[in-house]
């Protein structure tokens, strides 16, 4: 992921240094990692396929082979899983589409704000980063309480200033999405802002000087100096945010519990339900592969877009 970001090309290692050390020493160095990598990455990736070809319940002695049935079910309307699976995929999609722009743009604004020199800068930077350190469980519990439609303090104060005091933040569409996206932004914006900040400080001030000499205004400076200078950071932020959003689980698990109906139950939550609550592990494994394939396609498309922009 970060290869594109490396500011320097790695120096070509000299053959002299490479040749020494031979094969087995290298493998000795890699052994500890390879054991874990093999056991918990390679093995499960393959084993998962095997599981997905069975009606697999780890507690039952018989685990019938079903071939591609688990995959077929996901694509045949009218099967037990079809509508719920695609509803959960939709939930993941909606959340990703709504949250990624917010998590790319708002932290950038905040970074620009914090990039000036003023007393207490470090303090403010810390404040915005703080929620991220607390973790999703604390954030989820807190949001669930202050956003409760009937007893939550947010609705109470909204009522106080003359707005609606009955907004169903945690129970009804479209508000649940506002809540989930808003809480996620509140929780993780500090993370992206910090990365942007570092990127901003890596832009040579001379460029701004030069732009000013050419009579560029604030907006033009931003367009022609800041944005191009942030390109590698932007790629990083967009990709990591995209993946993080597609992996959303804790927020909806704690705040909305999937309501209304199952509208905010994400694909991951459904996979976990199917595999670890209903113990239909074969079907859940099949879902994981389908979702992973989707994400791969989306990531490739995003990469493409950035590539094309670069070429343009």
């Amino acid at each position, binding site marked *: 992921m970060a290869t594109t970001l490396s500011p320097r090309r790695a120096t070509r290692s000299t053959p002299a240094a490479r040749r020494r050390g031979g094969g087995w020493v290298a493998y000795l160095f890699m052994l500890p990692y390879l054991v874990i990598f093999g056991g*918990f990455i390679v093995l499960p990736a393959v084993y998962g396929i095997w599981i997905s070809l069975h009606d697999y319940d780890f507690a039952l002695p018989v685990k019938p082979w079903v071939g591609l049935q688990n995959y077929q079910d996901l694509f045949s309307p009218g099967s037990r899983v079809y509508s719920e699976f695609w509803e959960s995929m939709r939930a993941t999609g909606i959340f990703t589409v709504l949250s990624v722009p917010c998590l790319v743009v708002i932290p950038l604004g905040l970074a620009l704000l914090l990039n000036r020199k003023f007393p207490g800068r470090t303090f403010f930077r810390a404040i915005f980063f703080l929620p991220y*350190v607390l973790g999703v469980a604390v954030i989820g519990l*807190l949001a669930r309480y202050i956003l409760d439609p009937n007893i939550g303090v947010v609705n109470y104060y909204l009522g106080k200033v003359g707005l609606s005091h009955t907004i169903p933040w945690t129970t009804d569409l479209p508000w649940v999405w506002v809540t989930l996206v808003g809480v996620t932004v509140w929780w993780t914006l500090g993370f992206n802002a910090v990365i942007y900040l570092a990127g901003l400080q890596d832009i040579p001030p001379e460029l701004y000087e030069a732009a000013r000499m050419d009579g560029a205004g604030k907006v033009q400076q931003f367009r022609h100096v800041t944005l191009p200078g942030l390109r590698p950071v932007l790629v990083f932020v967009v990709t990591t945010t995209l993946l993080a959003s597609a992996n959303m689980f804790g927020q909806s698990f704690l705040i909305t519990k999937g309501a209304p109906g199952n509208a905010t139950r994400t694909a991951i939550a459904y996979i976990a339900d199917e595999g670890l609550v209903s113990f239909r*592990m074969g079907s859940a494994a099949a879902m*994981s592969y389908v979702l992973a394939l989707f994400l791969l396609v989306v990531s490739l498309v995003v990469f493409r877009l950035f590539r094309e922009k670069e070429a343009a």
Partner: protein
Amino acid sequence: MTTVQETRTSRSTSPTGQSGSPARGPWLSRTAFALTLGVLTLVFLGPLAWMFLTSFKTQNGATQLPPTLLPHPATTSGYHPLLNTTSQTPVIHWFLNSLLAGAANAVLVTVTASLAAYAVARMEFPGRRLLWGMVVGTLFIPPFLFLIPNYIIVSKLAWLDSLWAVIVPSAGGAFGVFFLRQFFSSLPHELEEAAMIDGANRWQIFTRVVLPLSRPALSTLLVLQFLTNYNDFLWPIFVLFSPAHLTLPAGLSILQGAFTINYPVIMAGAAIASIPAIVLFVIAQRSLVESVSRSGLKG
């Protein structure tokens, strides 16, 4: 980061810096700036303050409308079920588990990844290309893909309901190796070659030359890995079950179920979970933030 700042001339300004544009009243824009920051601070600290205040309220005080800002009457009863060591919800215990698991995982990743990354960056061996391609390829596999099979693997290892389950499996991830390999490759060869001429073997070069040069990268990886592990939610809530073995995320989600509407207890749990995190954050704030910013830049 900050050092870079100081080497700049004081006249240079950041892109949005106002000092370069005396055209508009600096007073006005400064006020707007201060106001923006003030509102943002309220938005970020308000909910946390509310959490702490609620944790000292009575159950009815926490849900009454209109809400009172200060606990009235103030009570610590929300904390009782949590701080009692024999209770089903030992929050302190959970926090220690989280700390232990996060630290163990971070160390495990840093040790195994640095060894492997060094081999890939500096040695020639059969199958190097293929292996490296495979490792990098897994960077793009989302973690949930391993949820079901790893659950079964961990259950076969009899690791369910033990901290091993939240320490070891995630150390297979490729990020650490990838990150360190980039860093090692950027180190100049001369020092290592000089050591070789002096007759040092691979292990000595690695431990005495490469690792000391890599301190910033290693500490960055440690911090990032700790944060990732500490914030993980999906996996621990399924693989841990006994009250004594839970980590914070798993424990707090159980707390929400156990005390559904007893908000003082829930908020007390969240508060207890937050305090050490906040304290640690304040202490290690600078290095932590710098680690995060480095992850985006110098991959």
